[in-house]
């Protein structure tokens, strides 16, 4: 397996910075973002004045903007912008950073996500919904009819999958249970109490077929990764995590008759990396909902369409399974840092910094980001090896 694509393996994640994550109160998103960038620089062994690229992505509270560079004190930026592809943003930032360092437009590009929507005393659902703008016109009838926020749409996409392919409630639950199993091994994870299938079934309904445990957390915090050329990354403090493949794909709405956005994005990223799904040893998949993991596993080619639920139920994704997936607990049980949750965990595993949750062979890692209602997607293929 090899690829001649000029971007394949030409860049690497050289630094990782993570703040406290979860119910972290009293710090603004900007404070958290500054912290994450400085931690990533220290991790990589890069001096602040050497950082010449900054890409940023504000979460649901929209708490950071281009003034972040002033807050950090970055004097020599050659490249800077604020990006938004919702759940695909982080993968997109790493992708654009990889292109920039490969083209010589920047030496080191910091990609940072920060959010602080949680306030003491408010429920996560309120924190999430509260940041959404109001609607006007024809679509303003939707909240009264029962469609407020993304959960109803995702729940109904899951129900369609259940009706078409026989995916079961217990199979959705298997994703929640598997993620919790990993979260119990991650000291930074928010939800670390044991969870079994009975506990999943007993958790409150939000929109059938989704229980509350089918839905991801809402978290405060920030995560930054620094992308450098592979050559520069090799001289830095930590082992490079190579960007072997990257791609995006977007679609107007879910269409069973056409290749899905995740199929197109993964196919392009795997082609760049010169691999197939069967070569992938570890998955870090965007899990805004349990169902998203099932459909991403199918679309990435780890099983056929309709078989993702059975794959989850087999235990393959859980600790000790043959396809370890979301090894930090994901966003369901770990922390909701949009696409930075899967990317940061991939970096931790590739560096073998996973402690109790470290997998034995983090050689080729598929990382997904999904935004909108299956509208926006980014895939990364990351690896501790420059080539196979």
């Amino acid at each position: 397996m090899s690829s001649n694509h000029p971007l394949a393996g030409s860049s690497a994640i050289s630094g990782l910075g993570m703040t406290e994550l979860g119910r972290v109160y009293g710090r603004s998103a900007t404070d958290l973002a500054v912290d994450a960038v400085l931690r990533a620089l220290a991790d990589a062994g890069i001096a602040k004045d050497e950082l010449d690229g900054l890409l940023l992505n504000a979460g649901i509270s929209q708490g950071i903007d281009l003034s972040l560079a002033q807050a950090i004190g970055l004097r020599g930026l050659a490249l800077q912008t604020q990006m938004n592809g919702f759940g695909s943003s982080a993968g997109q930032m790493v992708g654009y950073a990889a292109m920039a360092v490969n083209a010589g437009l920047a030496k080191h590009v910091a990609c940072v996500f920060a959010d602080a929507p949680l306030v003491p005393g408010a429920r996560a659902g309120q924190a999430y919904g509260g940041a959404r703008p109001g609607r006007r016109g024809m679509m303003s009838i939707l909240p009264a009819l029962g469609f407020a926020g993304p959960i109803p749409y995702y729940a109904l996409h899951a129900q369609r999958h259940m009706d078409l392919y026989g995916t079961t409630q217990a199979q959705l639950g298997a994703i929640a249970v598997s993620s919790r199993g990993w979260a119990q091994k991650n000291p930074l994870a928010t939800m670390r109490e044991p969870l079994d299938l009975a506990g999943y079934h007993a958790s409150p309904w939000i929109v059938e077929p989704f229980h509350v445990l089918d839905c991801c957390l809402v978290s405060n915090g920030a995560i930054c990764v620094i992308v450098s050329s592979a050559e520069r990354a090799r001289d830095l403090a930590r082992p490079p995590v190579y960007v072997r493949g990257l791609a995006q794909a977007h679609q107007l709405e879910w269409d069973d008759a056409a290749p899905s956005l995740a199929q197109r994005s993964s196919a392009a990223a795997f082609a760049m990396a010169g691999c197939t799904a069967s070569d992938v040893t570890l998955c870090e998949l965007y899990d805004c909902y349990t169902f998203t993991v099932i459909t991403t596993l199918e679309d990435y080619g780890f099983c056929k369409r309709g078989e993702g639920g059975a794959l989850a139920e087999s235990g393959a994704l859980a600790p000790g399974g043959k396809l370890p997936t979301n090894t930090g607990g994901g966003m369901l049980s770990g922390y909701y840092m949009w696409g930075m949750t899967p990317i940061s965990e991939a970096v931790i595993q590739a560096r073998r910094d996973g402690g109790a949750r470290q997998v034995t062979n983090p050689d080729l890692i598929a990382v997904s980001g999904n935004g909108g209602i299956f509208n926006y997607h980014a895939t990364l293929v990351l690896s501790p090896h420059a080539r196979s």
Partner: protein
Amino acid sequence: MTPTLAETARATPLVDERSLPFFEAAERGVLALQRCEACRTFLHPVRGRCTSCGDTRIAWVDASGRGRVWSHGRLRRSYLPEHEGVLPLALVLVELDEGVRFASRLASGDDTLVRTGDRVAVVFERLADGTPVPVFRREV
């Protein structure tokens, strides 16, 4: 100050100029949709240009109001005060015969279990503020 959910995801519709024909048709008990006069593509939600051919000649036409259940679910928790005492709501995504996917719910008091693929037809109900809204019943 971040607005609360009740302030932003408000249950009271805000009729704007562009969507007025939709609400006027609803008063007549008709589901109206936009259609491109050039290529006859139906558009939803409201657009100023055809998303297929780019033409700006867009007309409101009476739709069939009939379609198939694309999927369904039940709303069991809501932060909207308007939903107090009315949950669960039987949500549906309907693929209208005109080819657009339309989000709504089954008619109030309709406990019919719909399945993906079932035929449904529109009926109209009024929200608390009097706004007529399209909801669906399974065709028998």
